[in-house]
């Protein structure tokens, strides 16, 4: 087949695909809704949610995980484009990580020595480490689907930001239930859950996002 013939066939194909932002929103918003509903029905939101939302140290983890999720979702949309691999800047993610670490250090210093261990281990570590990855499955799946509809040229990085985005948003939703307000607890265990999901997402992305 000559290239001119191919061009003729390509030009006759007028089926248009939705842009990536639309694809992402149509999938991600319902996925997050399902995650919130699942938390509400199975674990319930914390009774003092209204108070927690105006308590700085408590609302900080919703903000941190939420900002991480939104910043990483924007990076997903950038990395879904072929030139995204060259232009994407990762400093917003580093800024969130730095803020979380700062909070951890602050909590370590201000928590009396004898209370540190209890604050870190908490009572719901296992629930946290199981629930956040479970809640992440659907959002991360949607993000990977969006990336596949795009033209990813940096599959490893795309899988990485998809994992951070999905697990960050899921952790923010889980925080509506969780009553462990010490940064010693949430930076550690939320962080570990997010890191685990991100690792899996990165490994999957490196394989499945080639085209």
């Amino acid at each position: 087949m000559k290239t001119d013939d191919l061009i003729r066939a390509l030009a006759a194909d007028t089926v248009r695909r939705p842009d990536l932002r639309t694809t992402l929103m149509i999938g991600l918003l319902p996925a997050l809704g399902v995650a919130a509903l699942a938390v509400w029905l199975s674990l319930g939101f914390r009774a003092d949610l209204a108070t927690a939302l105006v308590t700085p140290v408590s609302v900080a983890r919703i903000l941190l995980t939420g900002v991480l999720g939104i910043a990483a979702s924007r990076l997903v949309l950038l990395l879904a484009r072929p030139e995204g691999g060259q232009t994407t800047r990762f400093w917003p993610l580093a800024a969130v990580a730095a803020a979380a670490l700062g909070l951890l250090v602050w909590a370590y210093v201000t928590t009396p020595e004898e209370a540190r261990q209890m604050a870190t281990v908490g009572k719901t570590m296992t629930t946290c480490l199981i629930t956040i990855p479970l809640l992440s499955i659907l959002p991360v799946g949607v993000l990977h689907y969006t990336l596949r509809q795009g033209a990813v040229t940096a599959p490893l990085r795309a899988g990485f930001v998809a994992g951070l985005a999905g697990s960050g948003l899921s952790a923010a939703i889980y925080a509506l239930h969780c009553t462990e307000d010490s940064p010693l607890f949430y930076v550690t265990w939320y962080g570990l859950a997010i890191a685990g999901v991100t690792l899996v997402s990165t490994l999957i992305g490196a394989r499945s996002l080639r085209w």
Partner: protein
Amino acid sequence: MAEQDDAWGQLLAAANAGDARAYVRFLQSVTPVLRGIVRAKGGGLGEAACEDVLQEVLLAVHLKRHTWDAGAPVRPWLYAITRYKVVDAFRARGRKIDVPIEDFAEVLAAEAGPDPTEAADMNKMISMLDVRSAEIVRKIGLEGVSVAETGLALTMSEGAVRVALHRALKTLAILRERHVK
């Protein structure tokens, strides 16, 4: 260079809004540049193999055209797809090449020449499609039959032909991927 980018941007924006004629002009005007890049990077493979790679790139550009952001310049987007597919294609042909994207600016456009090179791979892939899809691609591509006439010939609605053509092109991209790996 910037002027050319603007022209490509206008054509591609019109094409993505549904202007088929603008789309043909877009593809026709990027093809010599892409051919130049492919030949500069993989000249040792011979012209026919380079034309195969070029067609692979064009198919990728086509199937991923919705990933271009109308506010962004066309060239970085186009070159990123080209680079990805060229590296992929040459690796599949047993050659590892390094394709620094900055080099692309210096590549001269290459016309197909008086007797356009016949690329072999695409024919092979088309014959691996189901009979009807293959016939649609051949009619529209090789014979230059319109979508409407193809529909009449195959007793399909115009819409059905369009959908079948779109699926066929997507399948071709997947087949190439599998075939070359």
